[in-house]
């Protein structure tokens, strides 16, 4: 047993954390997060140059990582800074391209932006009830349907799209120019898109893509869990600082025992959250990844809501304001539950065994 990060991952984590603190401060974050295109191309390239994207893929795919712990250290750092860049999209695309054996060079160096289009309005989470359909057309294929909440889709060059082909779930590549893309900003910052497909030209990548898609979802789930953990930890630090400085009734509000005990409960949940992220990271490339990722997302969904709501409540009015960062952390922590499966969805998955 060893719960310390390897030297390489510690360096990766430190490098990214420092970069974000220096180059992606909160004001900048908010201006990117809430203004189209919800993406800073220059910072994106700089992060790619630091090797952040390369951490998503193993060496034989041109990267230097690809394990669950590579994913979790990167996303924990991103979560801490509430970074709105479409890293989740890049990670999930990289996992899919590993399955197809495609060359990932332009993805990992940041020069081409990918987005992964799986969810639909009536099937926002999971793979079982997707309706977007593919059919052969000439010597290629065409797709019809609507993909929803495609993270990073507002700025992507290429989409990897899940669609039903002859009764099985297949994976296609669609160029952004060929589809109707409606980009928008999200409640908690960052961007997404609706991808409207109507006889849209597509290139078939994998005819039976179910396992590959599940793997991309698992990696995405782990990433979101780690991101949430990073955001929880920072949120909590902010709260503790505030409890030690805000005075009411002549004392720091941290002196009120009811707030002390609730803060301790938050700490307990954050420790639990860290443990489940570690477990899911350890299992990501193994046979039980889906189950442990589901466990992690369920626990994180509950803990994230608790940290968000308690942090706002225990700050009082100030955390209700746009100006104070705790509000934005609070939003992200709750809205993560709306990405790639909420608490109930993953609870059902764990119950199903």
């Amino acid at each position, binding site marked *: 047993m060893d719960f310390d990060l390897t030297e390489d991952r510690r360096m990766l984590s430190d490098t990214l954390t420092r970069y974000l603190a220096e180059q992606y401060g909160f004001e900048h974050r908010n201006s990117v997060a809430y203004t189209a295109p919800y993406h800073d191309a220059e910072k994106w390239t700089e992060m790619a140059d630091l090797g952040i994207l390369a951490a998503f893929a193993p060496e034989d795919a041109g990267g230097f990582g690809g394990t669950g712990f590579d994913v979790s250290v990167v996303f924990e750092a991103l979560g801490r800074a509430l970074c709105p860049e479409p890293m989740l999209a890049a990670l999930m695309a990289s996992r899919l391209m590993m399955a197809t054996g495609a060359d990932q060079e332009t993805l990992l160096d940041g020069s081409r932006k990918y987005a992964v289009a799986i969810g639909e309005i009536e099937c926002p989470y999971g793979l*079982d009830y997707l309706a977007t359909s593919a059919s052969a057309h000439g010597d290629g294929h065409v797709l019809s349907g609507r993909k929803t909440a495609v993270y990073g889709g507002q700025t992507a060059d290429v989409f990897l799209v899940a669609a039903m082909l002859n009764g099985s779930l297949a994976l296609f590549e669609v160029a952004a120019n060929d589809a109707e893309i409606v980009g928008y900003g999200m409640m908690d910052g960052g961007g997404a898109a609706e991808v409207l497909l109507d006889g849209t030209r597509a290139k078939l990548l994998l005819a039976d893509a179910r396992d590959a898609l599940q793997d991309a979802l698992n990696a995405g789930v782990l990433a979101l869990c780690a991101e949430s953990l990073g955001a929880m930890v920072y949120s909590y630090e902010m709260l503790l600082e505030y409890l030690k400085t805000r005075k009411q009734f002549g004392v720091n509000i941290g002196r009120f025992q009811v707030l002390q005990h609730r803060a301790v409960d938050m700490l307990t949940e954050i420790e639990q959250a860290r443990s489940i992220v570690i477990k899911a990271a350890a299992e990501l490339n193994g046979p039980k990844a889906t189950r442990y990722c589901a466990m992690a997302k369920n626990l994180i969904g509950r803990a994230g809501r608790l940290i968000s709501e308690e942090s706002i409540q225990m700050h*009082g009015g100030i955390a209700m*304001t746009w100006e104070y960062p705790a509000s934005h952390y609070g939003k992200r922590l709750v809205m993560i539950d709306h990405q790639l499966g909420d608490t109930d969805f993953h609870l059902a998955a764990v119950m199903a065994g």
Partner: protein
Amino acid sequence: MELTFSPEEDAFRAELRSFLSDDLPAHISDAVRAGGELSKDIMVEWHALLAGKGWLATTWPKEFGGTGWTPVQRQIFEEETCRFYAPRIVPFGLSMLGPVLQTFGTKEQQDTILPRILSGEDWWCQGYSEPGAGSDLASLKTRAVRDGDDYIINGQKTWTTLGQHADKIFCLVRTDVDCKPQAGISFILVDLDTPGIEMRPIRLIEGGHEVNEVFFTDVRVPATELVGKENQGWTIAKFLLSHERTGIAGVGFSMQALEEVKTLARNTRRGGGMLIDDPLFAARIAQVEIDLEAMKITNLRMLFQAQKQGAPGPETSILKIKGSIIYQELNDLARRALGSSAAPFPGHVTEGNILFGPPDTANSAAKYFNNRKISIFGGSNEIQRNILTKTMLEL
């Protein structure tokens, strides 16, 4: 024990329903249903409609132009107006200042100010909180110093809800510093057009503008604008806190929210079936429904008790605590039900007429975040628990 409403109360409900179904304009109920911020025009129009019926001042006695309704009638009014998506009555003039003036105001204040609240001529806002004085309101620092026939006010108020629409503000100000903090506070009325006042917007978590900061620099206010005696402000503030507790549980709003969530779950296709058939989600709805069913009775029991005693007791803090928890839980479900469709920032998807769900759900996530406020303002849930600890448990 008799849990049914009297024939008079049933008739009252029927009368309200027919008014609401005939006379509440669709553009008003649509705006309420959409769940975003309401324009002042809409609030003014609704107030005027109610005033026309004599139904605007639901907490005032008849001699001041109020309805003279019993707490049960007020509860019925809340339920029915929520059912029909009428706007909430803006409380500052009607539920707050009105009763204060009726109890502590001079005859002249009553005669000039109350009619202007009813007519909608004056919109009021509440200037209690300050950056350093939230839960510990008595520590407020905004200073009013007597100068001849005037007071000169310096300081800052914050969190002033709907101040941007208001003409006037009622404030708690410090008029004495050489005493216990509570003993040196006065209640004063200030015209927001007075020189030296600056109002700045505060943007809230979901992006909306409903609260403000108000800065006072050498603001000269005639001493006749004092309500009650100098240094009687704390007594007035406490009266106000304990006086108006109808509606504090927000039962009507929770009933509305429960119906919305059920309708949404029935109409939302999810994972091969309908969301309502997902046992986990259905259990969440059932759980809140049970709490709400009990809260309806808890609310009525406490309103009856208040009616008997003549004034609500400290136990009504229970209504605020549990009522806010129930409403917030329902807001959580409304957001949850949307799945990934809760993600768009309201108003951001303007291209292509794209829908994510029923149009009235576009603000669901925003509403959930915005309503985190209800366990913070008006005495946070922690402060309500402190009150109960002291008064009911005597600990």
